[in-house]
């Protein structure tokens, strides 16, 4: 990122990254919608939407010094400008290029986010292609000239009042509609400024099925501070009656705008009954691949509704780290609650204040309940719908099906299902792989499909729903199914299964072989999915999220993969400590307290370092020694002891210092570290850094089994 980007400060840069990401995702959605309409003459509003997205992206990435992105956006803007101004047609090669560039843009943004150089190898290629397109817009002049030659010019109809505030694009749309002989109308409506967004959206939704909106002109006549009169100039694509019907119930007047040579067109007679304003526009049939997604993400650009951040007026955007901080506070409150519980116990036992203790206990229970509610509330806020990821998968599907030359129809449902944001991030790679598999190996080529009496177009259904505390995602294809016999053979070749085992395997067992390392890649290897990553990786990744994958398949009918995930992640409160200048996490559920100790507190008993805590002897384990990096001598000044307990056993873990308490997501380490049993995984602590999470119970077990032997050693491992 450039000097300018750096100067802007981290927060602004984050805004940039998240907004840019949203724009790029919006581009993808609009492209899908255009692709779906499969016409060389796509809805001008969608194209304009694309143009605006790319335009904003260019401006933003220029401002923030992401040069490759702004360059690409710049060339693409020119190309899209040609498209929207009718100087070029949107053929499939243009769409392919646009789709490719969405991928590249996503890559660039990811690189910037990670602080890498945005050097996507595809970038140069895409840029070259876009530039190649830029040059040859011959259709251009044609259309432009054609429009100019046509009899009626905007200047013949409108005075400077309207003309002077039309942008170049709006003027172009006006010309085009005039050329096509569509009648123009002026819809005048008054809006409450306080609610103009929703009110106008309602009117827009009613107008869009019957007319193209060319511009909005705020009238300056009104003196009312709270009202705004707006003239909406539209080109009517349907009959005048339809316009009247569409505006039924809306407080608006409609006026026909006389255009030359069109006197015979409908007169200014269309005046809908002026009743109370209706809030709801008619619900339009969604043509998007993700209808639910569109419903959830109010204003997301499907069939042509404006992609607008404003319309998401009931939502706030929150940095996930702020939620993490809140979660930490909850964790700290949990410690307070623990302390109060101990105090009430002490009141009862030591001081004999039974009644007071009962009262305190009751209060503490109430506190506990509220705390759980707070915790659940925060977890709920972290939930996001699957729709964004599903949109990406829809793009991917399109790309793969084109690459492989297979016709695929992707049916998406349940995109509104919500899961924790972190789960979504971790889920998208495995899901992509699953979909790739379904298209590549599942769906047969056309000849085979015809022979099997199936329609030419293969179907992949991506379905999500919530089931209790779990989210279920199913990927189902109507392809060839998995051949159990081949799978079994592959497994036997790999040596995973021997003949004896094979003999007693059920059909289900055999299908599950697909998740064993190396089996799916051998049995199913092709160009696309066969490169090393197999279903085993999918299973591992899903397993790391606490989920399970199951497969059902019938030869000739299809395959269904079912992923069941917890809705929220295994987030545990942990204490971050330092040992020999490294940070480790100790799960709080095993920690009873943490205290500062001085070197004099420690004394050896039978070779084991111990200290006395409230009259009881507490064995100590110096974690630096346990970790195999011992420092000689007495306890260093300023050491802390974290008291961990497992059943009746207590162990004081000696650390160099306490950092903070934090909720952490435990991520498992690979099989290559399966011997590191004293760690249950690692957790992100920011800046790409990881901290290992101590498996306290394993440490205690190891300590006492070593110590229980004839010659107790100071530190279990060494």
């Amino acid at each position: 990122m450039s000097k300018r980007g750096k100067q802007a400060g981290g927060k602004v840069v984050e805004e940039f990254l998240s907004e840019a990401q949203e724009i790029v995702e919006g581009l993808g959605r609009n492209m899908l919608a255009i692709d779906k309409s499969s016409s060389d003459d796509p809805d001008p509003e969608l194209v304009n939407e694309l143009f605006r997205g790319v335009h904003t992206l260019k401006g933003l990435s220029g401002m923030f010094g992401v040069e490759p992105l702004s360059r690409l956006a710049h060339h693409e803007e020119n190309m899209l400008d040609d498209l929207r101004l009718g100087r070029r047609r949107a053929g499939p090669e243009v769409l392919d290029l646009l789709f490719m560039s969405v991928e590249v843009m996503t890559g660039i943004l990811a690189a910037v986010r990670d602080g890498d150089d945005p050097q996507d190898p595809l970038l140069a290629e895409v840029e070259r292609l876009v530039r190649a397109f830029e040059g040859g817009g011959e259709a251009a002049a044609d259309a432009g000239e054609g429009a100019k030659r046509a009899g009626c010019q905007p200047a013949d109809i409108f005075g400077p009042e309207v003309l002077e505030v039309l942008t170049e694009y709006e003027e172009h749309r006006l010309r085009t509609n005039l050329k096509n002989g569509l009648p123009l109308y002026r819809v005048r409506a008054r809006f409450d400024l306080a609610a103009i967004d929703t009110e106008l959206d309602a009117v827009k939704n009613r107008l869009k099925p019957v007319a193209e909106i060319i511009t909005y002109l705020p009238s300056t006549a009104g003196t009312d501070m709270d009202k705004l009169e707006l003239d909406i100039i539209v080109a009517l694509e349907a009959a005048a009656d339809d316009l009247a019907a569409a505006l039924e119930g809306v407080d608006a007047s409609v006026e026909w705008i006389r255009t030359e040579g069109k006197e015979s067109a409908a007169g200014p007679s269309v005046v809908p009954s002026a009743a109370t304003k209706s809030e709801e526009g008619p619900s339009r049939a969604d043509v998007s691949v993700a209808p639910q997604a569109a419903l959830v993400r109010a204003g997301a650009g499907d069939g042509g509704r404006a992609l607008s951040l404003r319309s998401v007026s009931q939502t706030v955007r929150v940095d996930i780290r702020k939620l993490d901080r809140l979660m930490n506070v909850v964790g700290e409150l949990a410690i307070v609650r623990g302390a109060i519980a101990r105090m009430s116990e002490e009141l009862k036992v030591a001081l004999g204040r039974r009644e007071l203790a009962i009262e305190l206990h009751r209060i503490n229970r109430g506190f506990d309940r509220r705390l759980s509610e707070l915790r659940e509330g925060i977890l709920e806020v972290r939930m996001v719908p699957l729709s964004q990821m599903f949109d990406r998968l829809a793009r991917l599907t399109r790309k793969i099906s084109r690459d492989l030359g297979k016709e695929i129809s992707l049916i998406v449902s349940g995109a509104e299902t919500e899961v924790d944001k972190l789960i979504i991030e971790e889920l998208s790679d495995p899901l992509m792989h699953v979909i790739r598999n379904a298209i590549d190996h599942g769906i047969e080529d056309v000849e085979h499909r015809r022979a099997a009496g199936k329609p030419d177009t293969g179907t992949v259904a991506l379905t999500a729903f919530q089931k209790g505390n779990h989210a279920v995602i199913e990927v189902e294809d109507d392809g060839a199914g998995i051949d159990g016999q081949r799978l079994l053979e592959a497994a036997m070749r790999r040596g995973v299964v021997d003949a004896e085992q094979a003999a007693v395997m059920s059909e289900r067992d055999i299908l599950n072989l697909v998740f064993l390392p190396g089996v799916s890649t051998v049995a199913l290897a092709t160009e696309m999915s066969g490169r090393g990553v197999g279903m085993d990786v999918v299973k591992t990744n899903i397993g790391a999220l606490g989920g399970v994958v199951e497969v059902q398949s019938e030869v000739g009918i299809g395959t269904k993969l079912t992923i069941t995930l917890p809705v929220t992640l295994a987030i545990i409160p942990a204490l971050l400590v330092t040992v020999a200048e490294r940070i480790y996490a100790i799960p709080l559920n095993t920690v009873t307290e943490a205290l500062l100790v001085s070197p004099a507190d420690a004394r050896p008993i039978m070779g084991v370092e111990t200290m006395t805590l409230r009259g009881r002897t507490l064995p100590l384990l110096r974690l630096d020694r346990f970790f195999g990096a011992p420092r000689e001598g007495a306890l260093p000044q300023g050491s802390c002891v974290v008291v961990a307990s497992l059943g009746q056993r207590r162990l004081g873990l000696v650390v160099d210092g306490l950092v903070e308490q934090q909720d952490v997501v435990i991520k498992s380490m690979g099989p290559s570290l399966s011997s590191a049993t004293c760690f249950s995984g690692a957790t992100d602590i920011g800046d790409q850094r990881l901290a290992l999470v101590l498996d306290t119970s394993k440490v205690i077990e190891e300590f006492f089994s070593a110590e229980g032997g004839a010659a107790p050693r100071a530190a279990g491992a060494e």
Partner: protein
Amino acid sequence: MSDKLAAPPSIGPLTRETLPPPQGRQADDRQGFLCFTIGDEEYGVDLNMVRQIVKPPPVAWVPRTPSHILGVISIRGAVVTLLDLGLILGHGPCAWPRTARVLIVDMWEEQVGVLVDAVTQVRRLDPSALEAGAALSGCARSENVRYVARPGGGALFTIVDLDAILGERLK
């Protein structure tokens, strides 16, 4: 001219997460190798194994593991084991030069990171340029060597069999 001369040590385009896919299915049976250096030796690995090349991220050391396991790193949200390839191949421990890179490679059950001193280039070699590693048998580290490559006239370099070496070390 030809690739004899074309070998600038440009690693730019490779630092991003995706490598160019092996060039389709052209009538080209040359195999791609990603070349890198450790100490003053040049090595190559099968390009198909390499998923990603990254600058070394911060490493969390994992106590009580062999010294060639440097620790774990965070790659796109996943925890990945990082190995010091130099140590495994009989060089000293990596000195972490500025050019050091981590190759993320696919092993059987997981992706692992492999630390090298520098990534130099991708070479596409004709099978005839490869000599079986057996030619070196007797040499101490021959079990790690799959081929010795002699790219037309250029210096030879060793193609290591990561599957074999790492597979052994990761058990």
